[in-house]
C-alpha cells in the first residue's frame, strides 16, 4: 500500500515544562479534507506549526509521501508541497492583491536577479502573473487585483490568503481556522471553495472551531485534547463519540 500523503507519527512538542503535543499520531489520505478539532489549548495550532516547519518537534516525525519533513525549515517544507495559511489575515497589507498572490508563485517561478536586471525574464513574469490571476479567479477575487490587500473586507482577506497558498500549487494545504470571523454567508461560500479546491486534487488539512463547517466539510476528523489524540473518524462517528462530547462539554456526565 502506498503511504498516506501526510503521516504524523508519535509527535511530541514540549515548551519547557509544557507538553503541547503528546505522542500524537494520525494520517491524512490523499485528496481528502481532513479536520483537526479540539477544545482551546488542545495543541491544534502547535501541530500545524510543527507540520509546516515553524517549530522543530521534540520527538516523533512528520512524513510527506513517506519522506521525513519534520525538522526542515518552513520554506523547505513548502518547497516539498506543503503550504499553509495563517490564523489571522497574514497578508502584505501594503501590497496589492495581485502582488500578494505573486508571492505565492515564488516556488514555481523563482526570481533570478541577473535575468531581472538584463530584462530577459519576461516569459517567467508573464507566466507567474497568469498563475496568480488564475488563483484570484478561483476565489472570485479577480476584480480586486489592484486593490491594496489591507483594504479588503475580512472575508476577502481570508480568501486571498488561500489564493496565495493555491498559487503555489501545493499538494497539501494547511488551513488554520479559515472560517474565523466570517458570517454564515461567507462561511458557506468558503466551504464551497474548499470542496472545489479538494476536487482539483489538493489534500486539505484544516483546523477549525466552527463545528457546523467542520461536520459539513470533512471526510475525516481527528479530535485532540490536551495535546493527545482523543478520537478519529468520519463526522458521524466524531459527533457521537462519548470522549469528544465530554471534552467539549466538560464532564457532562457528572453534571447530569
Amino acid at each position, binding site marked *: 500500500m502506498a503511504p498516506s500523503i501526510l503521516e504524523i507519527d508519535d509527535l511530541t512538542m514540549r515548551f519547557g515544562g509544557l507538553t503541547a503535543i503528546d505522542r500524537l499520531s494520525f494520517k491524512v489520505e490523499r485528496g481528502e479534507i481532513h479536520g483537526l478539532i479540539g477544545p482551546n489549548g488542545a495543541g491544534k495550532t502547535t501541530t500545524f506549526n510543527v507540520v*509546516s516547519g*515553524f517549530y522543530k518537534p521534540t520527538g516523533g516525525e512528520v512524513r510527506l509521501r513517506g519522506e521525513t519533513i519534520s525538522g526542515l*525549515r*518552513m*520554506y523547505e517544507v*513548502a*518547497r516539498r508541497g506543503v*503550504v*499553509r*495559511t*495563517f490564523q489571522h489575515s*497574514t*497578508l*502584505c*497589507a*501594503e*501590497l496589492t492583491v495581485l*502582488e500578494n498572490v*505573486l*508571492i*505565492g508563485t*515564488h*516556488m514555481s*517561478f523563482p*526570481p*533570478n*536577479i541577473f535575468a*531581472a*536586471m538584463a*530584462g530577459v*525574464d519576461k516569459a*517567467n*513574469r508573464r507566466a*507567474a502573473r497568469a498563475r496568480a490571476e488564475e488563483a484570484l479567479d478561483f476565489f472570485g477575487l479577480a476584480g480586486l487585483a489592484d486593490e491594496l490587500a489591507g483594504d479588503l473586507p475580512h472575508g476577502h482577506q481570508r480568501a486571498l490568503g488561500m489564493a*496565495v*497558498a493555491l498559487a*503555489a500549487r501545493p499538494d497539501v494545504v494547511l488551513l488554520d481556522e479559515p472560517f474565523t470571523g466570517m458570517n454564515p454567508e461567507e462561511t458557506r461560500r468558503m466551504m464551497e471553495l474548499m470542496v472545489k479546491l479538494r476536487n482539483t486534487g489538493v489534500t486539505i488539512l484544516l483546523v477549525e472551531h466552527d463545528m457546523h463547517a467542520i461536520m459539513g466539510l470533512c471526510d475525516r476528523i481527528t479530535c485532540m485534547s490536551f495535546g493527545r489524540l482523543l478520537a478519529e473518524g468520519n463526522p458521524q462517528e466524531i459527533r457521537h463519540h462519548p470522549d469528544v462530547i465530554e471534552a467539549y462539554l466538560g464532564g457532562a456526565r457528572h453534571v447530569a
Partner: protein
Amino acid sequence: MPKLAALLGFGAILLALPHALSFSQQEILVFLTINVLLVASYRLLTLTGEWSLGHVVIMGVGAYASALLSKRLGIYVPAAMLLGAVTAAMIALALSFPLFRMKGFYFLIGSFAAGEIIRLLWKRFRDPFGGPKGLKKIDPMPDFDIGIYAFDFFEPVSYYYFALAVVGVSLWVMWRIERSPVGLTFHAVHWQDRLAEASGVNVRAYRTLAFVLASGFAGLSGALLAHYIGTINPNSFDVEQMVFVLTWTIVGGTATFYGPILGCVVLTILNEIVLREAGFEQMRPLIYGLILILSVLFMPKGLESLVRGAFSWRNARKKKAGETGAAG
C-alpha cells in the same frame, strides 16, 4: 512620450547644473551625487525591513579597498573602484552570517558593533590602512577624452559628470531590481516574513541578498569619494556620517524609490547652501536639528508624501476637468 521628454529635460538640467554654481558649490554637488548613491543603496537594504548602523562603514570598506588596490597594486582606478564595490559586498556577505541571526533592534546594534570593529581595524593597523591618519595621496581618476568631452579630473565639474554617470547607472540597476520579482520578494520579506516563508521563500537568503547588494553599491559610492577627495581616514566613516544617512532616509521617507534621494538632496541644499549663505555658520547644527524635528512631527511619511500628494491632486484636477469638459 511625455515621460521620456521629462527624463531628457531632467538629464539636461543635471548636465547644465554645475555651470550655474560656484566652485565650492560644485564640490558640494559632487559629494551630493555620491551621497545620493549611498542613500539609494541604504533604501535597498531597508526594503527587507532591516536598518543598519554600519552602512557608512561598508561605504568606507569600498573606499579603503579601492584606494589600496590602486595605490599598492597600481590597478587602473575605475577597475579598482569596481573591485572596491565587490570587496564591500564580500565583507557584507561575511558579516551577514553573524548579523542575520538577529532582527530589528538587535540587528541595528549588531551592525553598529560590526562597523566599529572594522573602524578599529583601520585605526590599529597602520599597515596597510594607515592608522588614525588614514590613507593620503590616493590616486585620482586618470584623465581621459571621450571625443565630445575631455575629462580633467582636477575640475569638480569633470568628476561630477563621471560620478553622475556611475550613480545614474547604479540607480537604474537598483530600480530594475526593485521592480522585478526579486524586489517583490524583498517587500514580502519585509511585511510578512512568515507568509513569504510559507510560500517557499528562503527569507534569510533574501535578507542576505539585499544586504550584499546594498553594500556593493555603498562600497562603490565610497570608492567614488576616495578618489575624489584623495584622502580618507577612519573618521570619514564614523557614526556621525551614519546619522546623516539615517536622517536623509527618514526625512525623505522609505516608501518610494525617490524618497531617500529627495531627503538627501533637500537637506544637503538646505544645510550646505541655504544655511551657509544665510550666514548661520554657528547655528547650523541647531537649525538643522530643528528642521528634522519639525519634519518628523509634521511629515511623518516623509518628503515623498508631499510629492505623492501633489501628483494625486493634479490627477484629481485633470479628471475633474475632463468630466466637466465632457459635460459641457
